[in-house]
């Protein structure tokens, strides 16, 4: 009985540690993919002069990486609300990808820019956002490199410690 309990403790602590480590990977992957898709969006809006809805449709169909979910959520919400509200709601929903409050706010602010200005002004403001998220993606990579193994090891280690204490 004790052995089974100990095994359960080890397993649950390990799962917790690994999921904490995985969230770092998920966040970095989302930020990289967001940078890529925002760059595509900028090109389609400012060079090809495509309407916002068409660009969202394109990104949610053919975009790569987890940020595709963000664009597809925005497109879905656009059915019954205006663009800025839909974009903001999708941006705030990006917390599930590990984005922090400041990143969500920066992404939401883009909703007041996209489609509201002439192409060159939009290019300038989207570029600024791309630069910001690129910097955050690099920091997320660094954090992942430093903490991934640590978090996983802490999870498994604390599980083992608890198990030993229990026995």
């Amino acid at each position, binding site marked *: 009985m004790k052995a089974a309990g100990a095994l359960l403790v080890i397993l649950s602590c390990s799962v917790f540690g690994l999921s904490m480590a995985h969230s770092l990977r998920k966040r970095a992957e989302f930020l990289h993919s967001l940078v890529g898709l925002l760059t595509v969006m900028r090109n389609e*809006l*400012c060079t090809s002069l495509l*309407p916002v*809805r068409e660009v969202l449709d394109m990104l949610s169909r053919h975009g790569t990486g987890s940020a595709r979910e963000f664009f597809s959520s925005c497109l879905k919400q656009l059915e019954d609300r205006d663009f*800025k509200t839909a974009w903001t709601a999708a941006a705030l929903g990006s917390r599930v990808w590990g984005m922090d409050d400041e990143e969500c706010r920066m992404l939401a602010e883009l909703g007041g820019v*996209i*489609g*509201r200005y002439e*192409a060159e002004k939009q290019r300038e403001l989207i570029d600024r956002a791309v630069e910001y998220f690129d910097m955050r993606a690099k920091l997320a990579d660094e954090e992942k490199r430093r903490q991934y193994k640590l978090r996983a090891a802490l999870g498994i280690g604390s599980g083992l410690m608890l198990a030993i204490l229990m026995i």
Partner: protein
Amino acid sequence: MREKLYRIEKRVMLNAEEIRLRAGSGLSMLSAGREIAVDVGKISSGELADVICAASGASIHTVAANIREGFMTAENGHRIGICGTAAVKNGEICGINNYSSLSVRIAKEIKTAAEGLPELINSSGQIASLLIISPPGGGKTTLLRDLVRRLSDNGTRVALADERGEIAAMKSGVPTMDVGKCTDVMDMAPRAEAAMFLLRAMTPQIIAMDEISSEHELAAARSVAGCGIAILATAHGSAEDLKTKKRYSRLIEDGVFDNIVMINGSGSERGWKFVRGSELV
């Protein structure tokens, strides 16, 4: 803004030909040539900007070039005239800030508009050119659209140079207005260039274009006619202009247009007069 518009009675909305919005003032409807004020409270310049943004499908960048010219075309062909503080660079308007007035001209598809007009195709299959003349807001575009539809549905290849996107109201490459089964549309391009493009690319039997006025556009009409292609076109003016304005009378004298339709009156009193070019020369 949307909520303010929802307050307007449906009956009033249905009769409206134009909606006018003025910042600091309010909203009025144009019906049968009369402007009727509708009480929806004061409208701000920001609300006018929201209307433009919504009408462009949250894509101002797609209509920026048109806004610099003072108008944009919304989905379904509704034309929005724009007024405000102009930003000028090197003597040219490069943008409009602080919108002050909008005039939304409601596009109407009337499939009986061209009913009663004589046939433009004779028994030997020859197609006659036609110029539609009327003052602004007279219904030229509606008549042109219906003529295009009728000719096209009868199997005539019509090429449509739709510079403002009001005739066919294209959406993702598909016309949202009925312009017939055999119509090829080039929209949002300068009409003179579009006409020459269509002439080369689509081998049409008729080229249709709205509101020709500049020398460049009249020269394009002349070139098209010179290639043996019939033209359907509209122009601002009155019956008097046909006699006094040389630019139009010369086109008729030179046989670019075989027939003229002059629209007069407005609202329910609107009517048209068909005249053979030969009667005017």
